């Protein structure tokens, strides 16, 4: 069944009820009169319903946006190898460029990984420096090209250890120079390093925190820190092959397997090694979603309870309002309006409030999700784009129909009480 059809199916009971109840009648002038007479109370109802709807759809839209955004960020990282420790820390350090204290993979292990059958490339990562809050990440041109999807957005790749390819959202222009600070954030120390780096190229946008990063040859990072440059003296090329004897260690190796089959074989092999572990970032994220999924269920239940309370409040208020309309309802009965018409007027009044509230709630939910997405993107550097999908439309349609059906009972009870 298509999504649109599912939404329609949810709405169908409410539509059928309306069609049956209103058939042959024109209650809308009276509904308009009732809406106008108690406009401020009605406005409060509409806002309550809007908030209930927005909560329902906002939570699912935001949760999906976070899932999609983080999955997109991990898209280029098929397999990551690190020293034994926390998989989550390795994931954060590599995919999300979060400064983390992780162990180092030795040169011997790096060479073993890079020379394994089925490895297209194995790029070491080097963290530790930053500039204006953006991480300076040492790596190889192979990984930069892979992240760029084949070609840089502008400029060129690494030719010297002091060249930098900036992430798509980093404010440094091509040609800009800087001296990296040692460390990150408030603890970053300026003036410890002397090498001046120059921005020579720019990555296209990836939606990952790497969009803010400054990528530089890992040899330059090692050298800046007074370490061996990964190659034997006199061998001054950039990138692989690295010499294990001159390899200072790396917190993470991003491995590009030649195939999916190779990826699983490599992961099993590296993970079995005593002093290495290998993770699929996508799998780690899925595990994380599993944990978050429980939270989502709890949050969903909380939202459902809140929606239920709001719906109950609105229905109770509808009952009270029906009693306020008692004279108008009695007048209609005296003028000869049939019971179904009197019921139709009250129900259509409720339906108008519910419909307006739901439409407003969808808009409100969309705006709230977008705002949350913008704030989350700014805070995590991961592109979180929340948008409304069919799931949210179904949620809104289900809520609307449920309350429309319940409001028929409330209208009937209210009418009976008003005419007593």
């Amino acid at each position: 069944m298509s999504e649109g059809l599912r939404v329609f199916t949810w709405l169908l009971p409410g539509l059928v009820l309306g069609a049956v109840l209103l058939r042959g009648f024109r209650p809308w002038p009276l509904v308009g009169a009732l809406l106008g007479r108690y406009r401020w109370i009605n406005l409060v109802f509409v806002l309550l319903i809007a908030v209930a709807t927005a909560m329902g759809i906002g939570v699912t839209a935001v949760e999906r946006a976070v899932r999609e955004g983080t999955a997109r960020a991990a898209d280029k990282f098929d397999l990551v190898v690190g020293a034994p420790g926390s998989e989550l820390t390795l994931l954060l350090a590599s995919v999300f460029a979060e400064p983390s204290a992780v162990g180092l993979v030795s040169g011997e292990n790096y060479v073993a990984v890079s020379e394994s059958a089925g490895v297209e490339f194995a790029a070491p990562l080097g963290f530790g420096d930053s500039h204006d809050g953006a991480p300076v990440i040492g790596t190889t041109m192979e990984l930069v090209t892979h992240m760029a999807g084949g070609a840089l957005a502008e400029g060129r790749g690494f030719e010297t250890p002091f060249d930098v390819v900036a992430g798509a959202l980093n404010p440094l222009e091509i040609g800009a120079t800087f001296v990296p600070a040692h460390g990150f954030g408030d603890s970053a120390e300026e003036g410890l390093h002397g090498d001046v780096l120059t921005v020579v190229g720019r990555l296209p946008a990836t939606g990952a925190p790497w969009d803010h990063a400054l990528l530089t040859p890992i040899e330059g990072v090692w050298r800046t820190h007074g370490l061996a440059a990964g190659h034997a003296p006199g061998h001054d090329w950039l990138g692989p092959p690295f010499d294990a004897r001159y390899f200072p260690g790396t917190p993470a190796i991003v491995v590009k397997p030649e195939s999916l089959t190779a990826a699983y074989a490599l992961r099993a092999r590296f993970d079995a090694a005593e002093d290495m572990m290998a993770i699929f970032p996508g799998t780690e994220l899925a595990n994380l979603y599993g944990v978050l999924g429980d939270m989502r269920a709890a949050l969903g239940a909380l939202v459902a309870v809140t929606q239920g309370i709001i719906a109950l409040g609105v229905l109770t208020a509808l009952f009270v309002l029906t009693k306020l309309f008692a004279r108008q309802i009695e007048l209609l009965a005296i003028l000869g309006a049939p019971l179904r018409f009197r019921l139709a007027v009250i129900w259509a009044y409720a339906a108008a409030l519910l419909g307006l509230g739901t439409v407003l709630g969808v808009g409100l939910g969309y705006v709230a999700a977008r705002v949350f997405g913008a704030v989350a993107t700014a805070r995590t550097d991961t592109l979180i784009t929340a948008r409304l999908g069919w799931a949210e439309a179904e949620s809104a349609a289900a809520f609307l129909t449920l309350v429309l059906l319940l409001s028929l009972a409330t209208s009937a009870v209210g009418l009976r009480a008003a005419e007593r």
Partner: protein
Amino acid sequence: MILDLPSLALEAGETLGVRGASGAGKSTLLRALMGRAARAEGAVRWGGTDLLALPRAARTRFRAERMGVIFQDFLLFDELSAPSNAAIQALFRPRAARAGLAAEASRLLATMEIGETRRPVAHFSGGERQRVALARALSHGPDIILADEPTASLPAEAGAALVETLLEAVRARGATLIVVSHEPAVLARMGRVLTLDHGRAAP
């Protein structure tokens, strides 16, 4: 017992004034005649139709088709215009009857010098509002018109004019009119007057 009326017979086209002190049973009589008394025994027979013997829905339909009702405090929908109020039955009557209802409501409003204004009746004077209520009571061509203190909320001059309009309309269509009123000037214009005292017809 609030009202005990052994017999009350009216000819078609007759006008009846009902008077009595507060609590004498005037409003209860009107409710019984509309078929809306909470508990009633006996019969309320309009022509060959015993209203009390009809199911509730049929009584409602009878009122829609054959009765026009006017209230002391007008009971209009304040947010609607005069034509919308006068043709209120068009909202629930069968489609075929709607155009005729609206046209008759417009004609009646024009003869009562209200016109086709779209202003909500909340902005109308008391006399104008009661004329709109009168147009509403007549627009569907009823042959029974019930009025509960129709002039009580109006100045004397406006009240007298309204009674003239009402009587003219009744005469023109040969309808039966029952007016509850405490005003001698109104009662004097009725063909016959019934006095209620503690729920019974006074001699």
